């Protein structure tokens, strides 16, 4: 099982980040770490198998937005936060209005 490691970064004196700032900082660090880290070597075989089967595989970082209300759950991803939120808003909106058979 992988051990989750964390990094503490002291902020300069006087800086009072709001929740959005903290989200951005977190996402930035996660992106840097993800870009820097190599994938598990076991994936090489899987990727080769997929390519042999004719798949062109690519990957990248995405934003994930989610909405939860009681048992209702929706999530959307996108290459930008705007796109993820747009997708999420559409999915939620689909089930906002009334419907009957």
């Amino acid at each position: 099982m992988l051990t989750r490691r964390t990094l503490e970064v002291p902020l300069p004196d006087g800086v009072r980040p709001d929740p959005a700032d903290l989200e951005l900082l977190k996402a930035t660090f996660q992106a840097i770490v993800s870009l820097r880290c190599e994938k598990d070597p076991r994936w090489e075989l899987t990727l080769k198998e997929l390519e042999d089967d004719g798949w062109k595989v690519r990957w990248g970082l995405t934003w994930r937005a989610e909405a939860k209300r009681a048992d209702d759950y929706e999530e959307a991803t996108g290459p930008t936060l705007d796109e993820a939120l747009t997708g999420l808003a559409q999915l939620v909106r689909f089930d906002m209005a009334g419907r009957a058979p």
Partner: protein
Amino acid sequence: MATETLPATFRDVMGAELGALKAAGLFKEERVIHAPQGAEIEVEFPAGAPLKKVLNLCSNNYLGLSSHPDVLAAAHAGLDRRGYGMSSVRFICGTQDIHRELENRLTEFLGTEDTLLFSSCLDANAGVFEAILSDKDVMIADRLVHASIVDGMRLCKAAQDTFKHSDMGHLEEKLVEHADKRFRLVITDGVFSMDGDLAKLDEIVALCRKHDAMVFVDDSHASGFIGETGRGTPERFGVLGKVDVITTTFGKALGGASGGCVSGRREIVELCRQRARPYLFSNTLASVIVAATLKVLDLVSATTGRRDRLEQNARIWRRLLTEAGFDIKAGESPIVPVMLYNAKLAQDVARDLFAEGVYVVGFFFPVVAKGQARIRTQLSAAHTMVHLDRAIEAFRKVGKKYDILGKSKNEIVERYGL
């Protein structure tokens, strides 16, 4: 027994969820009908109660064909000539001559180029988008489309977007916003099931032509009776042959059993035949339904008598409710919502109407938007003036009891809350 192996935690969790549904007033209980579908039916409700004969104002039996003797005879004959089951999907060994015949008849009736049968319109809607669109495309749907369209859109990799209900300005904004997509498919119901209003199909088609987009219409609550000869909302709005994809059901006006179809441009229908998963992986439509639906098409093509009577019934019913002082949604379809706004009031009124011999259902959140609780009444060509007179008497009596006659929305909300 299999039930003994259910983990206790599973039972606890499911039990709690069922309890929560009951506590929220959202638990659905089936009312058992001991008669063929019709204007008057015998209902057992609650379970075990003596049968009660009631006037049915909540079925989709718009043309009164669900138990029509000619339809029954055609079903019997179909059973005798083509058997009961096909034990196959269509493309292996499940296509009979009558399946093709029905597809051709529907193509002619709907004014399209080709048609493909499905087990239901829900299946048609679940399969069509994924079959014809890809991630290069976008689906732009009216925000009040039927739940099965939403499910179908979720199964499709094309981008999803919505426009405000029947807001043509907003639709045009969306068409412009998605101009970079390969195909734009605008999706709407022909008649919206909760409010009974019609899509502005002429305007939608014009906008789509202007922006080189395609039009999709689910005409389940229209086929057979909307339009001069019952060909649906495309006929009503003068755009027959201009809608790229139509889905519809045989489970409402067209006999009321089950089954549906995708009808439209030849290539679209052919792609559905090749790729639509509910078509590929689900059994063929039962021959008995095909035979009966062919007879239904004979009946609705031979005369407009039933759709004319339905139109007249809807007009009379709207007038009677308005004169009695009820707040109804204006419109021209046989779906006539009586607005009560408060969920408990809608349930209480429906219950009291049932006691008075009129079967209707109260709808409230989440079936309709919050504060929009209502009773949805649905007319049928099978209703007579005697039925409508009896129904309005019951509505007047119950309306008087709750002091809602002649009251505005604000007055009802002030008294009962939202």
